[in-house]
Each structure stands twice: as C-alpha cells, then as structure tokens.
C-alpha cells in the first residue's frame, strides 16, 4: 500500500462519515409512518378481543343456537306468510257454507211455520 492509496482511503472515509442534513420533511414522514403502524396494531387488537370471545365454547354454542333459532323461526314465518292466502280462502268458503246452511235451515223453519198457519186458517174457514 502506497502513501497515495492511504490518502484516497482517508478521503473516502471522511466523505462517508461527514455530517449531512436530513432531506426536507423526513422527520414528519417517519412520525406519520410510526403513527399509522400503531393505529393498525390497535385495530387488530380490538378485533382480536371480539373474536376471542367466541373462543369460549359456551359463547360459541350460544351464538350458534341463536343463529339457528332465528333461521328456523324466520323460515316458519315465511312459510306461514306464503300459506296464509290459501288457508284464508278455505276459511272464507267454510264461513260462506256455514251461513248458507244457517240460512237454508231458517228458511225451512219459516216455511214450516207458514204451512202450519195456512192449515189452521183453512180449518177455521171450514168450521
């Protein structure tokens, strides 16, 4: 190694180690990145705590049962709503039939009474 070589190395080291000012806005960018990372970690922790609740078997089964019940009840209600018009039509026909029968039997009673009155009147006329 020559003296010139030593000088070149010394210059390179001095150049590399000399103090330089950071680029403009560097500190703000670093702080913003740190803040963003810490918010994301907090959100992960929050979500983790909610989901973590379902790690307990009792809560997991309760939730499953609640969802199943809601689905079954909803299904029954939906089916009932679909069936209602058809059942309502049957009920209406039954109601009309009941009124028809009531009406016809009242007419029968009336005609019997009328017939009996006519017979009595005829008998009185003969006498």
């Amino acid at each position, binding site marked *: 190694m020559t003296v010139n070589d030593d000088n070149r190395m010394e210059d390179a080291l001095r150049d590399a180690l000399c103090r330089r000012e950071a680029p403009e806005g560097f500190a703000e960018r670093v702080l913003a990145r740190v803040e963003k990372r810490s918010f994301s970690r907090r959100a992960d922790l929050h979500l983790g705590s909610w989901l973590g609740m379902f790690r307990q078997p009792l809560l997991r089964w309760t939730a499953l049962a609640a969802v199943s019940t809601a689905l079954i009840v909803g299904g029954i209600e939906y089916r009932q709503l679909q069936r209602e018009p058809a059942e309502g039509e049957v009920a*209406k026909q039954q*109601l009309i039939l009941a*009124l028809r*029968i009531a*009406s016809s039997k009242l007419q*029968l*009673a009336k005609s*019997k009474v009328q017939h009996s009155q006519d017979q009595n009147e005829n008998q009185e006329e003969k006498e």
Partner: protein
Amino acid sequence: MKKLSWLILSVVLPVLAGAQDIKIPPEVEKLSAKAKETVEVTMDGPMLRWASKFLSADDPEEKKCAQLVANLKGIYVRSYEFEDEGGYTQAEVEALRSQMRGPGWRRVVGVRERDGDNVDVFFRLENEKMAGIVVIAAEPKELTFVNIVGPIELDQLADLGGEFGVPKLDPKSLPQAQKGDRK
C-alpha cells in the same frame, strides 16, 4: 257458613252454566262415522275475524257477509246427511235441545211433523237483546245443528237469507213465542 257456601254455589252455578257456550255432545259428533255427507264448521271469534279478512269488499254479497259476522263470537255448524232414514236417534237430538233449557234461551219456533220434519229455533237473549241463535233441524235423512254466537239484530238475521240464492227471510213472519215456551 258451609250452608251459606252451598247456597251461593247452588245459585251461581246454574247462572254460569247458562252463560257457557253450547257444546256439541260426543254422541252427535260420532254421527259423522255413519253419515253419507258431513259438514262441520267450527269458527270462534278470532277465526271468524281472520276468515272475514278474505271476504272481498268489492263483492256486495261478501261485503254484507263481512258486516254480519263482524260482531259475532262464533259460528258452529254440524250437518249430517244419511243414506237412509233412522241415521240418528231422538236421544241425540234431545242431547242438543236440552242445552237450550237454561236461562236466557227462548224457543221461537218449534215444529213437529208426522213425516219426521222437526225444526227448532232458539234465541239467546241478554238484556232483551239478541245474543245468539240456535237452529236444530231434524229431517228424516238429515240432522243439522247451527249455533251462531254473538249479538245479531233481527234484520241482520234476515240478511242471512236472500244471499247465495236463498230467498230472504222475513223476521215479521216468525211467531212471537212466549218466554219459557216448551213443547
């Protein structure tokens, strides 16, 4: 004290029994097994209201029908048609009739004919207002029981006829039977 309790019970129970709904006796219900044709309609208040929701307001007949049943508490019909005569006994008819012997009931029509056509019409009165009607028609091959529960005015009752192709019933033609009239 015991005697007083018995006295109260003996007064209250018949009143309660009179207020109870008419029941179809089991021996009458069993007639469906022997009948050629059976009509059984059982409609209590909520069922009537639900069924009347499906009556069309555009159809004048159905509209009248809806108005008629609006204040009713129930309609119960049993009609049995038999192949031959003697499908039912007088005991079964009597089981129906005997329920209208309680207080509050008035028989307005009672027809007994030799050919076997027997018709009874009973009104249930509450404060001298119509609160129900029962019709029992015992014909040779047919037994029909109709029980309409609820406040019905005579003109509303007449509106039962005249609809569905059946001639109108004139309430004035019904005889005014005396209270407690029995045959």
